[in-house]
């Protein structure tokens, strides 16, 4: 394989791995903050128990997030030296701000994890606030950098290819930032809430019906329910922005090969490039134009208006988009059903099919989030910086990219397996202690 393919494979694998831990780094501190706060108010030990269990798991999750994030910071340069030499001065600012967010997060996490016996309960609880805030801020800052890759702004290119008029603030606040950032942030809460609810639903299915499991489920479902509504709204805003700003990505998301007035939505199906159509999809006429422009007869630009080497991989982008929206819908419906039953029956639903659905939403939320990133990243191709720098021009020419990829792939698998094993053993130990 050539260096570009290997670099993309290594980068994509590392990001897809890191993001799972990163979203938990955004969401879990908020849940710990709430649980410990409820304990301080009610003095009910169950809340403290929840916070303590999550903090133990978080100790491992954060460290894996930190080391995989470190890989990414190195890989940006090791794999894409030309991209970084070109972009560093423009989009480095949010990364630098993120550096400080990491500092604050790591410092207060040290206090939180090791300070249970050394700090007073209130001070201990207070240390969770900077963790939750800086976790969210690191996500916001790093996605600003990614948004800049989608909507490069804050600079001009001179006739010799040099940079002119660099404005790092304008680059950080590029046109993609207002759509990408909120959507990513709420997705992090969707994933955390769904995974937590999923864990306690498993316990309840195994008939471990106690206050701890019930409250864990309620906290997780609360976070997931609020966040999934916001994910739908912000995702819709993103899609409308993409319709205008990145027409090739949009056409790939929807499998639109030919420019049409009154474009349909393709639900599912597989885009077949050779036939220039989506095979096996449910077609809903005019809906896409309506969604994208509030006009059932709006024009949607087709892939055939782009030179073949300026088109993203339509199959991947379309299937990823449908996966994200499909799982998002599943999560939304599950949360709606759960809360409707809670509100009308005035007690927690212990209906097994519903609990089973909640178990499924955990992994489904992770897949929705990964799929969303696939839409963003594969949909931007062949550009690493949209319409400015091609991915193929940005990779390193260093030797031994193949072994690097294999080594990191093996490391990530090892880390994932060990993390999972340790978390399961922790759960077992918790049960034995209870």
């Amino acid at each position, binding site marked *: 394989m050539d260096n570009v393919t290997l670099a993309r494979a290594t980068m994509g694998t590392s990001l897809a791995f890191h993001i799972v831990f990163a979203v938990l780094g955004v969401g879990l501190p908020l849940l710990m903050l709430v649980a410990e706060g409820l304990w301080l108010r009610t003095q009910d030990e169950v809340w403290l128990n929840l916070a303590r269990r999550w903090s133990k798991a978080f100790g491992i999750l954060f460290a894996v997030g930190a080391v995989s994030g470190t890989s990414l910071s190195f890989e940006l340069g090791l794999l894409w030296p030309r991209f970084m030499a070109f972009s560093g001065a423009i989009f480095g600012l949010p990364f630098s701000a993120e550096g400080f967010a990491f500092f604050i997060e790591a*410092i207060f996490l040290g206090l939180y994890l090791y300070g249970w016996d050394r700090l007073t309960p209130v001070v201990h609880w207070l240390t969770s606030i900077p963790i939750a805030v800086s976790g969210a801020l690191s996500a916001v800052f790093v996605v600003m950098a990614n948004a800049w890759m989608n909507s490069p702004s804050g600079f001009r290119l001179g006739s010799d290819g040099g940079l002119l008029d660099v404005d790092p603030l304008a680059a950080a606040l590029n046109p993609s930032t207002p759509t990408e950032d909120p959507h990513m942030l709420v997705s992090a809460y969707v994933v955390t809430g769904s995974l937590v609810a999923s864990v306690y639903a498993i316990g309840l299915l195994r008939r471990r019906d106690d206050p701890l499991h019930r409250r864990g489920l309620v906290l997780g479902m609360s976070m997931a329910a609020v966040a999934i509504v916001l994910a739908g709204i912000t995702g819709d805003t993103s899609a409308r922005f993409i319709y205008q700003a990145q027409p090739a990505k949009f056409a790939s998301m929807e499998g639109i090969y030919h420019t049409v007035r009154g474009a349909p939505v393709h639900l599912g199906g597989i885009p077949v490039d050779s036939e220039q159509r989506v095979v096996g999809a449910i077609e809903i006429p005019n809906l896409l134009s309506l969604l994208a422009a509030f006009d059932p007869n709006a024009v949607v630009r087709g892939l055939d208006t782009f030179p073949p080497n300026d088109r993203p991989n339509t199959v991947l982008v379309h299937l990823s988009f449908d996966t994200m929206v499909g799982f998002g819908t599943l999560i939304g419906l599950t949360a709606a059903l759960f809360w409707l039953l809670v509100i009308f029956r005035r007690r927690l639903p212990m209906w097994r099919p519903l609990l089973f659905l909640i178990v499924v939403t955990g992994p489904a939320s992770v897949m929705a989030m990964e799929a969303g990133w696939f839409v963003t990243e594969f949909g931007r191709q062949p550009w690493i910086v949209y319409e400015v720098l091609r991915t193929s021009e940005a990779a390193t020419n260093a030797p031994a990219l193949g072994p690097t990829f294999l080594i990191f792939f093996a490391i990530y698998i090892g880390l994932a397996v060990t993390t999972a094993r340790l978390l399961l053993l922790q759960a077992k130990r918790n049960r034995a202690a209870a």
Partner: protein
Amino acid sequence: MSEAEIVAAILWLALTAYAVLAGADFGGGVWDLLASGPHEAEQRRAVAEAMGPVWEANHVWLIFMIVGLFTGFPAAFGILSMALYLPFTIALVGIVFRGAAFAFRAHGREEVGAASAWGVAFGGASVIAPFFMATGAAAVASGSIRVSGGHLVSGFEAGWATPYGLLVGLFAVAMCAYIAATYLTVETEGTPLEGDFRRRAAVAGLVAGAAAITSLVLAPFAAPSLAHALFGRGLPLLVIALINGPIALVAVWRSRPRVARIAVAAQVIFVLWAWAVGQWPYLVPPDLTIADAAAPNATLTALLVVTGIGSLLLLPSLWFLFRVFKSRNPAAIY
């Protein structure tokens, strides 16, 4: 000083903080690997207790340096990433293993056990990471990385895969072990472990000293640009380091842990700044100066503003962290 020079100095400060703080965490891994004698288990526990609350914060200095480098000096970042692809990738594997292995053991102690394969991974990775980072530093300092017309022309092995690079790597690992053992004598003051770590500190200090003297003697032949830096503008700091080195060793040997801790940390600072001052104004000698590699002024200004605001939040937090966990022994700041 120009804005670019201020940013370069700040990055060098971050490198210093990383060496003094995270260096000790790597050294802790070395002593975990080499734990022996009747107090073997206690030695491992002392390392884990000292590192636990602080290693993630210490680690962020590295991230700060990387993002600061690619924001402030993107051209240098691009060149260094290519020239040092191999040693940095190997160091990265070490960093990943070190962090993960430590966390797996610290937060899953009952589950994985102290002497498991993750323990070996923790110790081994703690050697690999500083070793290969230091070989990269040797490549920079020795002026082996050559740039022409913005392109790397010296290939992927230049400067680090040499006997001199290996010597500098050995020096770095010994130095990490030396700092760690010295700090640990303070952490364990008054316990039977103090003597264990004192002897370890002395041995590591002698190895580090021998490696340092050898590399100084060989520098004019193997790394002319480093020799030029150290015997040129870096000379005053080098002389101070040469005086301070024996003082530190004597303090270690005479059981003056708190003096020793300060003297050993100061030694790291003197060596790093003798190099920095010596090669000023070059970032990657002999072809890239600080000014050549610098980002446009708008970026540097923004970076300085972010750093200023960030430091206002960072420094008090850091002070609080160390106060809470390093005040068991009132004088212990590490």
